């Protein structure tokens, strides 16, 4: 046999073997399962790194006036510990879980956008080293994980640490937004027949709702980071009080992201608990609808509570009370969940497997953390314990005692599915008890330390009564946590090699991911089982006595709604809209607070900008006409209209550039005053979006030249059209806010 026929004979097997094995296969993979595992491994690696940073912190704080590390090192340690744990551990872990599980749970073959998925995974892998490069580039960021201004500004932070922090978080933010878009489109469009939205496994439902929070919150972070970077590198004044900027505005912006962020972290954890507890109680979850509904309530309310991080700023009695009320309100839907999970246990048949142990510990610990959280809403208490170790204790009770415990439960629960092998139960129990004892030892005493007056982020402390002994207890606990983590990693490695074979459904669970081999084949399912309820496998095992004749129920297939590509683009422009809203708010705030309107009135030419606007609006018209041409099958018309759009867009950009040059010539620059800062930032980012739009249009034009468009519709054209119209709509708002407002001020 010659090579060719050998290849033909083995044709199907050989290329696939080459592709699916080895490191290259993983790097080039578009398979959501492999990408999910990449996320998870990244998260575990950084858990160890962040944990070591925590150990350094605890060793330094073990005794009063300790000199284990210098204050500067310590400040880098706690900044990187917080940043790492939130952005490089929890977020990758919960997103990674979602990326692995969501397609399986809904009976799909993969995510809606596999390439976007891969991009997101590798951006996370890149962002970590980018952030950590700061250690050898002059010092890691050292202003805390929320980088309050003006400490994070020049001249107070002259090194590049904060800049690496900004860039690392920026990359991570983009990755997370991409994942959110992917989740939304996947869950809406790729569910298997019978998997209605009201039957979704709660992990997938929570991931779905979570994705909307991400779309609305991450752009706020990105906008804030952009403004801070502009301050630091281009001489802007957004957050520098010495030049009219506002330190408080940074806090408002950051916490408008930061508070929803903690819900972004916790909602998938809630999803894990909602899966694990019923399975190991052998009982359907209590109150599925309330858990699903309360998730939406939490998502909604999470955006209205942010200033509870700012009660000590002195915002005013009325604002303080309203934020306190909103913060108390959000405890209600969270409490509903806790109640329902606990009641699920009641009357069940509980199996104390390792995932269940972690889940039950979650219930108590997260409730504890939630209660101390409510205590912060009692404002005078906040006025005592904010930014003390009581706060550190609270945040670790919800983030570690809650989220990380849930993540452990997830690992022990789904590792068999991912690898085909069971994790060792013995090692798992060691892992659990070391963590349970270690965690509570470390963090319970910190409540007391805070009430004794110990502030957070102090590299050392005076030898006041009991401060030393409680800190020592806390440090001992940290070592137990370290030991437990080592046991966990060892368990992962050893069980991967020699764990007991798992089979399809080792836990006798009920959701779709357990209806396929472990690990699942590349296409996930050879056959998706019929879905008639929220527990498909349970329904299969317990068929109802009577069944209405199949297909008798009328099919409610309506006219097909939005396509997958358009949905994704709409989600994207939703997030971009939030980005612009923040920049517009900054512009508007300084218009009033710093009277930038008077400068605007003096230096801007609204009429000329208005003419420029007309070009941009016309380009929207030509884009629409392009779509119409394609619908009629007129490909030359299509090309012509796309070209017209590009030309009009370029004319707009040219007009912008001319205006900018004129302004800079008159010494109106981004660094001169707040008008310059806010004006150039807002118009600059808009111009950037126009520029990107032109690149997309050029790509379309190129594709059109090669005859790639087939009448009557093209997803690519529609998607770019949506983006282009969005950019124009943003300009209308920007034009009104900047130019028309300046006319009113005149």
């Amino acid at each position: 046999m010659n090579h060719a026929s050998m290849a033909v004979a083995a044709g199907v097997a050989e290329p696939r073997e080459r592709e699916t094995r080895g490191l290259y296969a993983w790097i080039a993979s578009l398979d959501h399962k492999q990408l999910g595992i990449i996320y998870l491994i990244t998260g575990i690696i950084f858990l160890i790194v962040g944990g070591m940073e925590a150990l350094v912190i605890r060793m330094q704080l073990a005794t009063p006036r300790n000199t284990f590390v210098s204050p500067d090192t310590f400040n880098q340690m706690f900044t990187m510990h917080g940043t790492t744990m939130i952005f490089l551990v929890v977020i990758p872990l919960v997103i990674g879980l979602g990326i692995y599980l969501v397609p399986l749970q809904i009976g799909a073959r993969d995510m809606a956008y596999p390439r976007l998925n891969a991009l997101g995974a590798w951006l996370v892998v890149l962002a970590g080293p980018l952030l950590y490069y700061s250690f050898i580039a002059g010092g890691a960021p050292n202003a805390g994980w929320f980088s309050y201004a003006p400490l994070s500004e020049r001249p107070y932070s002259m090194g590049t640490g904060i800049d690496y922090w900004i860039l690392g978080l920026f990359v991570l933010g983009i990755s997370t937004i991409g994942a959110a878009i992917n989740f939304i489109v996947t869950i809406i469009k790729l569910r298997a027949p019978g998997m209605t939205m009201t039957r979704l496994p709660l992990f997938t439902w929570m991931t779905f709702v979570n994705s909307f929070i991400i779309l609305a919150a991450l752009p706020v972070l990105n906008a804030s980071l952009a403004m801070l970077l502009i301050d630091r590198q281009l001489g802007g004044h957004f957050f520098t009080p010495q030049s009219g900027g506002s330190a408080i505005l940074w806090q408002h912006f950051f916490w408008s992201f930061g508070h929803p962020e903690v819900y972004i972290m916790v909602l998938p954890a809630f999803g894990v608990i909602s899966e694990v507890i019923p399975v190991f109680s052998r009982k359907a979850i209590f109150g599925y609808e309330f858990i699903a509904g309360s998730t939406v309530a939490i998502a909604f309310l999470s955006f209205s509570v942010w200033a509870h991080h700012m009660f000590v700023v002195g915002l005013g009695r009325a604002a303080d009370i309203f934020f306190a009320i909103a913060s108390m309100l959000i405890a209600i839907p969270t409490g509903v969940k806790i109640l329902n999970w606990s009641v699920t246990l009641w009357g069940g048949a509980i199996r104390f497997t390792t995932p269940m142990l972690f889940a039950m510990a979650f219930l108590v610990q997260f409730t504890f953390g939630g209660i101390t959280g409510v205590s912060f809403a009692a404002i005078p208490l906040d006025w005592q314990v904010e930014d003390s170790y009581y706060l550190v204790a609270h945040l670790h009770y919800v983030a570690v005692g809650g989220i990380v415990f849930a993540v452990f439960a997830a690992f022990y629960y789904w590792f068999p599915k991912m690898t085909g092998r069971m994790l060792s139960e013995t090692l798992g129990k060691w892992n659990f008890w070391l963590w349970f004892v270690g965690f509570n030892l470390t963090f319970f005493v910190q409540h007391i330390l805070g009430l004794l007056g110990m502030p957070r982020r102090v590299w050392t402390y005076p030898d006041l009564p009991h401060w030393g002994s409680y800190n020592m207890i806390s440090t001992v606990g940290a070592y137990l946590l370290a030991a437990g983590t080592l046991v966990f990693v060892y368990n992962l490695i050893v069980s991967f090699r020699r764990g007991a074979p798992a089979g399809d459904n080792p836990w006798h669970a009920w959701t779709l991911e357990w209806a396929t081999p472990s690990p699942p084949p590349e296409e996930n399912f050879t056959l998706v089982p019929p879905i008639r309820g929220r527990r498909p496998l349970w329904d299969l095992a317990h068929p109802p006595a009577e069944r209405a004749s199949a297909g008798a129920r009328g099919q409610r297939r309506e006219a097909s709604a939005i396509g997958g590509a358009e949905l994704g683009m709409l989600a994207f422009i939703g997030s971009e809209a939030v980005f612009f809203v923040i920049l517009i708010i900054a512009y508007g705030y300084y218009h009033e607070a710093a009277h930038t309107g008077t400068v605007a009135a003096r230096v801007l030419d609204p009429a000329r900008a208005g003419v420029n606007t007309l070009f941009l609006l016309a380009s929207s018209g030509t884009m629409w006409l392009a779509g119409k041409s394609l619908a009629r099958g007129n490909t030359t018309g299509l090309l012509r209209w796309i070209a017209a759009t590009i030309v009009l867009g370029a004319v707009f950009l040219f007009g912008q550039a001319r205006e900018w040059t004129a302004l800079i010539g008159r010494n109106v620059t981004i660094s001169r005053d707040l008008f310059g800062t806010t004006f150039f930032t807002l118009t600059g980012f808009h111009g950037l979006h126009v520029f990107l739009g032109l690149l997309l249009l050029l790509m379309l034009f190129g594709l059109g030249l090669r005859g790639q468009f087939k009448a009557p519709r093209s997803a690519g054209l529609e998607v770019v059209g949506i983006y282009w119209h969005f950019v124009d709509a943003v300009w209308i708002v920007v034009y009104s806010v900047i130019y028309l407002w300046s006319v009113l001020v005149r």
Partner: protein
Amino acid sequence: MTVWQVIQRAWTWEPSVIVGCLALAGGYLAAGGARRTHHAVAFIAGVIVLFLALDSPLDTLGDTYLFSAHMVQHLLLILIVPPLLLLGVPPAWVERARRVSRVRRLMSALGAPRVGWGLGIGTMVLWHVPVLYTAALAHGSVHVLEHLSFLATSVLFWWPVLGPIDDARLAPLPAILYLTAAALASSILGIVITFAQVGLYPFYLLPVDRLGIEPLIRNVWGLSPDVDQEVGGLLMWIPGGLVYLCAILGVMSRWYRTAEHEERSSGSDDDRRDGDVLAPVKG
């Protein structure tokens, strides 16, 4: 001065409001017969709230003294009265009206979500522009126009969510986005008002104290002009937002109840395909 005395003094009996509310209630009862359905309860409740909003001391306080009181009035007109009125309309009436083709076309044009959202939110934002807001306070006719526009456009806003006709209603997910976007818009407006400099609405800085209650308001109740403006903005933001949240939870409750009902009555595969979640749902 006690609160009761304030109420007595400040309660104006506006003939136009009384006549209007009686006509509305009377017309409804006449059209449907005075039956005690939950529709009737909702509608009459809506009329009562409408009356209280437009005629009670709230109106007097809001027109002269307190921005926050005026805000409460507007919130009632936009967020409470229209939903109640809509919930009070029996589907049968609308079905009958829709048989007239012109009415049906008008309904589908005005009932489109884009129209409802745009008009509802747009009207709210527009009337808060200081120039227009002050004009409404200064001229009675403009004020009537303002209130009528609030009522009318808010009915259009709530129609795709709470309207009596299933087909005209948004599917659950789009409905949630619709309401969230509205909450966002009103929150931004509320935030701007809360944090803006005092004197955004200069009318309230020095009220004409015909009732002699200004000392009570400023000193006993502690509502200085800047606290008043702050509270007004906060009312729009948080309680306003809560109403939208309750509506969202209502949409979800209806969604899950319907799904469960279908699951119990069918037993076979549910042929939902992709994209259906965005299409209108029956029920």
